[in-house]
């Protein structure tokens, strides 16, 4: 009947909430063949992760409910199988990389243990499992693999955690890999390695890859076919280049048109007194030197982007700025005062002016607060910002600005998709109208159309209100469009800094050059060409 490896037919998923029923996925059908890569593109919140969860039997029922459909794997309907049969499939035949690695890793077990567990539960001998775990960790490019196995999730950077998830999913060489935004937190060089690894596996085992992503470049690089989703429905499907070049659905068209990296580059417009000057910031975790003397200057109304290797200390740097991590050395001058020298109490009034969007937004939202409470908390703390009577309108306004609905204010964080949560975190940062916003991968989980909208919003705020941004991103085209200055980091040190134009047009350091060269183009044909060139290079 079916010769597809995996076929989803008429899948509908809905959630019961206090505010009513949310139809997350509506009548979705697609299929995946052996050795094929199917990319699911779509608006943030369009039901991509939910349909993937349905395949893995991970939807909480209730409050979730699969109202219709079947998921055929090997000719069997997964939805009809017993829990035990599903368990046999999960991890071994079908594996999944979760969108949000921090909360999906068990905080109290070493990552090596967690990777090896996948193999142990499916009957691999523990010693063998450990050896393979080590190999996997090495393959995904974690430094010091042997030590990494012993460490706990919180001791890794965002990108490193994502790679751990990948290693975990690849452990048993599954028939199908569902990768939900597997490379959002990876810099382009590492991303290239990881994609290569996937490709290699695919070639080796004929693995089917279901790739959920926002990054058109990644789609162009890897996907054979594309499914585009919007508001829980499939709006378009077809071969990758076909969809890119001849999009039929208006949403798809908008999406492709929104691909970043086409705007004017900026030369930097630093004027007046610097808002923030960080000098010689160092941080050591035990014997590991995460920051080795980093300088950073931000002027009012300016965007400084930090790009660089995953694990190079970007998040650490900004966390020292907001004093979540105490630096080992260095100073940060803000309004003439050294932030690092302040007591936490003195720091409090300053915090109003420096807001941060965390790299893992899910964990940064209190699960017991509604979105309204999450956002309005800022005004509860700093009473003079918005008068209480206007909270409702202001929350609604902020949510709308980041592309959410006012009604969402009544929901709780767990009822949102990854990208939606990221936008909530942005809205929260905006709520205080600070002088400086630190965005740690703030737009990485957004599809390009929403991304463009958010970036436009931020840019407008920058211009109108003079808000400065520290913008950590791996997505070079976004940086190119948005930043005034760029700082390139590697292994805890700044390897290069300059205006956006300088960096993009005239990179000096080797690392920057590699970085720029590894960037992916959203056009599948361009990518195909590049791939062919690379292959020649390797062969030669």
């Amino acid at each position, binding site marked *: 009947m079916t010769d597809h490896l995996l076929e989803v037919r008429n899948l509908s998923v809905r959630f019961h909430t206090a505010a009513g029923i949310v139809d997350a996925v509506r009548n979705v059908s697609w299929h995946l063949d052996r050795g094929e890569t199917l990319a699911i593109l779509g*608006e943030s919140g369009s039901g991509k992760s939910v349909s993937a969860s349905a395949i893995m039997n991970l939807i909480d029922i209730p*409050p979730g409910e699969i109202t219709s459909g079947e998921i055929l794997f090997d000719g069997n309907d997964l939805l009809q199988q017993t829990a035990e049969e599903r368990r046999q499939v999960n991890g071994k035949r079908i594996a999944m990389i979760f969108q949000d690695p921090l909360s999906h890793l068990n905080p109290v077990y070493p990552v090596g243990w967690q990777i090896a567990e996948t193999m142990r539960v499916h009957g691999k001998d523990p010693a063998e499992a450990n050896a393979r775990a080590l190999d996997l960790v090495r393959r995904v490019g974690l430094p010091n693999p042997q030590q990494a196995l012993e460490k706990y999730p919180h001791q890794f950077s965002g990108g490193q955690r994502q790679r751990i998830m990948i290693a975990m999913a690849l452990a048993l060489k599954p028939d199908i890999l569902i990768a939900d935004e597997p490379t959002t937190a990876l810099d382009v060089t590492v991303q290239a390695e990881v994609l290569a690894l996937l490709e290699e596996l695919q070639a080796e085992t004929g693995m089917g890859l279901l790739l959920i992503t926002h990054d058109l470049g990644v789609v162009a690089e890897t996907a054979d076919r594309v499914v585009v989703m919007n508001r829980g429905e499939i709006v378009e499907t077809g071969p990758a280049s076909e969809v890119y070049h001849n999009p039929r659905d208006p949403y798809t068209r*908008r999406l492709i048109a929104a691909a970043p990296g086409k705007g004017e580059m900026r030369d930097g417009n630093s004027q007046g007194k610097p808002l923030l000057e960080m000098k010689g910031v160092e941080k050591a975790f035990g014997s590991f030197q995460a920051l080795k003397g980093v300088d950073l200057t931000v002027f009012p109304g300016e965007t400084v982007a930090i790009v660089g290797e995953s694990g190079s200390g970007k998040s650490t740097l900004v966390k020292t700025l907001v004093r*979540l991590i105490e630096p080992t050395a260095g100073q940060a001058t803000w309004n003439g005062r050294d932030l690092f020298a302040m007591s936490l109490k003195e720091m*409090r009034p300053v915090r109003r002016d420096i807001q941060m969007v965390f790299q893992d937004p899910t964990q940064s939202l209190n699960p*017991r607060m509604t979105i309204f409470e999450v956002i309005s908390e800022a005004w509860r703390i700093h009473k003079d910002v918005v008068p209480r009577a206007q909270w*409702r*309108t202001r929350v609604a306004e902020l949510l709308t600005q980041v592309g959410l609905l006012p009604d969402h204010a009544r929901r709780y964080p767990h009822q949102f998709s990854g990208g939606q949560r990221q936008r909530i975190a942005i809205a*929260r940062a905006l709520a205080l109208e600070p002088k400086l916003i630190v965005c740690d991968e703030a737009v990485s989980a957004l599809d390009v159309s929403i991304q463009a*909208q958010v970036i436009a919003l931020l840019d407008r705020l920058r211009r109108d209100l003079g808000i400065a941004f520290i913008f950590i991103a791996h997505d070079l085209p976004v940086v190119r469009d948005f930043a005034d200055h760029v700082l390139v980091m590697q292994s805890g040190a700044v390897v290069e800094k300059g205006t956006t134009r300088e960096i993009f047009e005239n990179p000096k350091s080797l690392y920057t050059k590699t970085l720029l060269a590894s960037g992916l183009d959203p056009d599948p044909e361009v990518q195909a060409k590049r791939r062919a060139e690379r292959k020649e290079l390797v062969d030669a």
Partner: protein
Amino acid sequence: MTETVESSQTPVLAEDEKNPVARLLGMLWRDKFALCAALFILLMVLCAVFGPLLLGDAASHQNLRGRNAPPFSWSNGWLFILGADALGRPLLARIVVAAQNTMMVASGAVACSMIIGTALGMIAGYASRRVGEAIMRLADVIMSFPSLLLAVIVLYVFAPSVGNLIVVLAITRIPVYLRTSRAEVLEVRERMFVQAAQVMGASTGRIVFCHILPVIMPTIVTIATLDFAFVMLAESSLSFLGIGIQSPEITWGLMVSQGRSYLVHAWWLSFWPGLAIILTTLSLNLLSNWLRIALDPVQRWRLEIGGKSND
């Protein structure tokens, strides 16, 4: 969704249709166990408030010749349906009347120890190492200080009174709340949303009360509900020393312990008050379990969409 943005009308967030109390009651209605528990507690509170007024006399009228009258006999009137105690007083009336003192002492002691213990524990977990260490060692000391000795000291140094009884009981129970809340704070304070609040400039008080407390509260309340039973029973052993409640004032704990010597031959003397203690504790615990779910947004659907469960 994108459309919503472009249509540049001022967005509005409608007022919530239902007020939170009505929603909570709705959730209570859906959990029949919790509903019964709530009704029972309500009944006990009514007993505590009006019992002594209504049945005070009946409860203290002695009749030595009708002592230890067995339960379930209508011959003496409905007040004697649960039997009579060693002085021939109707047990039912006494239980109703005793509810007042019992509730006062138990809720006083539990509330004090819970509030003080939790507050200290959160300080110990969140404040500087030095302060935390000092508080914890203090907890160690309290933990090793026998409650009976404390009671005897209070008896001798201060006047015996109900207030002092509550103090003694409360002090001895402080360490468990203190240590539990501290342990939880140590973990919760590492969570990212706490850090996010910190970055927003939230004061320590706000972080502790709005972010950490809601996470640790369910555990604390669970312990507190069971402490209710513990305190009710422990109180009678302190009355033995002469502090606190004295006859003819009465509590359930005292009734239970006075019935102790009759346990084998007139079980009803201590059984009914004991049952009252058990049912109260059980109800409180059911309510706390319900509250745990009702206040946890991730779990709340269990109460919102009817009694379906996932097993």
